[in-house]
């Protein structure tokens, strides 16, 4: 089975496109073009990914030996905190929405830009401002409260630079809110003629759901951190039991946002996977409506489950029961997606191009991450594995195995559109395999460690856990290689890659009908959509071979 369709020779880059329309630093820093803003975000989230990655590397090196010789216990606290803050608030949350979402939503719905281009640029500046505050905190004493900022540790006892970090995350929240607001308005009002709601690509549905969480969740973390910051600065007592406040209330408010924030990270990745799978299975996606509706369902139900993070903090048993039950409900729409993706693969004409490798990897890793989530939602079992490495492994399977895999896969899938160039396919497949192997070697041992009782956030451990920890560290080094490779060859391909052409895969989305890289205005004329989404059967314009009727496998006599 041919993997990549042969490229007709003679593709040319368009003479003028968004990358070369204007030149100079000013034209980038003052741009209102959603595609350029996406690239600004790409550079900045990659920077924070590096920062977070360096901290992760140090953590893993430190844990090579049971006594942990690399850093002091205090520094270890700072390392895992800063790793979490950089990765969650400044990489994972903005990664797919702000990079791929910004680039693709207008292209996918046939618009010239987002509804509020200046606001879009402002979001990036807000993100950068928040990022500067957080970097300042890292540089001047670090942060040792855990990314969760639990009070009264963060508001009274911590001697690290909590205040600038809290200010930075508070500011950064407005970037999320404005991005979400921009996306919702864009999707409502800017669709091209014929682009009805049920013709929208599933990536757009996923972004819409994510934006709901941005708009309705982020303000709560903003006010919570504001109160915690005020408490620290002015010695107030909202969450300080010594002054009559209630630390559990902080946790309620914190997780009201921060649990749905997990869906901010995973929903867009699910959107990416829903684009990649039908493209490389050459089949319409199975159950379009269900996948779209399940995105919305995850966004809504995701707001009903937050207190499962607090089973052991003294919340009422009855509330814990209710939250446990509600947490199971999220598994339903998630499972709907997984079933639909696998059904799409069934009898598809599958080719294993790089994005597809990421998508298949995503399904497996998300499945493990999601199912172990059910363990944690179970009230009784959670008492055993709460705050152990089991939790660490679980959320890394969702966030790295899910969200980052989706992000890197999406980056590969749309790289030809973003840059107009193809990346080297062999290296890319190799990197995908390295990532998958490295990831599993890093995090699977942590499930076992946690189940055996190794608590998270400790700087040392009993000697009998060393073998599994060494495995994990070894995996992390492979994982690091898996991230460095794409960074190198993707950068390389911007200059030296083969010219991609409009639609290299080919795929059905509207974004593939325009030039690669697109013009500043995205389309020559406003497109009119008169086809159904992912309709690989009735799209002769894509130049696919006439789909042969699905022939039954020759009988081997065993069925």
């Amino acid at each position, binding site marked *: 089975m041919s993997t990549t369709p042969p490229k007709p020779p003679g593709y040319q880059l368009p003479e003028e496109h968004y990358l070369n329309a204007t030149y100079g630093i000013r034209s980038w820093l003052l741009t209102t073009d959603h595609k350029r803003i996406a690239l600004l975000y790409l550079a900045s989230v990659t920077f924070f990914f590096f920062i977070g990655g360096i901290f992760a590397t140090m953590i893993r090196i430190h844990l090579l030996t049971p006594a942990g010789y690399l850093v002091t216990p205090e520094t270890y606290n700072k390392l895992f905190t800063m790793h979490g803050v950089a990765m969650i608030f400044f990489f994972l949350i903005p990664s797919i929405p702000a990079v791929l979402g910004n680039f693709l939503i207008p292209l996918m719905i046939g618009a010239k830009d987002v509804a509020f281009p200046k606001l879009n640029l402002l979001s990036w500046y807000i993100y950068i401002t928040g990022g500067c505050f957080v970097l300042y905190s890292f540089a001047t004493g670090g942060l040792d409260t855990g990314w969760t900022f639990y009070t009264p540790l963060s508001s009274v006892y911590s001697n690290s630079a909590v205040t600038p970090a809290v200010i930075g995350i508070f500011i950064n929240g407005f970037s999320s809110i404005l991005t979400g607001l921009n996306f919702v308005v864009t999707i409502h009002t800017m669709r091209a003629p014929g682009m009805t709601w049920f013709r929208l690509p599933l990536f757009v549905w996923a972004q819409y759901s994510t934006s709901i969480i941005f708009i309705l969740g982020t303000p709560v973390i903003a006010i919570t951190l504001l109160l915690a910051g005020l408490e620290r600065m002015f010695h107030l007592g909202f969450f300080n039991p010594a002054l009559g406040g209630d630390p559990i209330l902080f946790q309620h408010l914190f997780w009201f946002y921060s649990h749905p924030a997990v869906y901010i990270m995973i929903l867009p990745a699910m959107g990416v996977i829903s684009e990649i799978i039908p493209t490389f299975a050459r089949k319409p996606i199975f159950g379009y409506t269900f996948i779209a509706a399940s995105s919305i369902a995850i966004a809504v139900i995701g*707001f009903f489950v937050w207190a499962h993070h607090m089973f052991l903090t003294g919340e009422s048993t*009855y509330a814990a029961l209710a939250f446990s039950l509600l947490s199971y409900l999220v598994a339903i729409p998630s499972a709907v997606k997984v079933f639909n993706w696998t059904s799409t693969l069934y009898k598809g004409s599958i080719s294993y191009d790089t994005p597809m490798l990421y998508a298949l990897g995503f399904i497996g890793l998300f499945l493990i991450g999601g199912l172990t989530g059910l363990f944690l939602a179970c009230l009784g079992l959670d008492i055993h594995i709460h705050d152990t490495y089991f939790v660490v492994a679980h959320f890394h399977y969702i966030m790295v195995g899910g969200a980052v895999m989706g992000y890197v896969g999406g980056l590969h899938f749309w790289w030809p559109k973003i840059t107009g160039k193809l990346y080297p396919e062999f290296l890319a497949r190799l990197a995908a395999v390295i990532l998958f192997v490295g990831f599993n070697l890093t995090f699977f041992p942590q499930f076992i460690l946690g189940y055996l009782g190794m608590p998270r956030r400790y700087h040392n451990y009993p000697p009998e856990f060393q073998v599994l920890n060494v495995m994990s560290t070894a995996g992390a080094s492979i994982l690091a290689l898996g991230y460095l490779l794409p960074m190198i060859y993707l950068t390389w391909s911007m200059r030296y890659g083969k010219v991609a052409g409009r639609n290299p895969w080919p795929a059905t989305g509207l974004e593939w009908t325009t030039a690669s890289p697109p013009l500043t205005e995205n389309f020559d004329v406003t497109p009119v959509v008169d086809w159904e989404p992912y309709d690989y059967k009735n799209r002769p314009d894509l130049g696919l071979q006439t789909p042969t009727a699905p022939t039954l496998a020759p009988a081997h006599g065993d069925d």
Partner: protein
Amino acid sequence: MSEHIVSPKIYILIFAALMILTITTVYAATVDLNAHFAGLNVIVALLIATCKAVLVILFFMHAYYSSKRTKLIVFAGFFWLAIMLSLTLGDYGSRSWDVH
């Protein structure tokens, strides 16, 4: 969305209603309603405030004349607030049930 122009007459009517409700709420606060039913003072105060808020949203903010989509957004905002309040208060309220 705002093709419908709301006349000043309605605005003044709403303003008058809001004034009456303000006076009522101040008066209600000075009466000991808690003697009849624990917490009735708060309930009355919040009910009156909600009436006022609804009047402002529907008429001053034109939600009454707006599209279903706008109404949905208003509803979503308050619905999410309700999720946060009810589930958190549910925890606080049921702690005393715990049997030791």
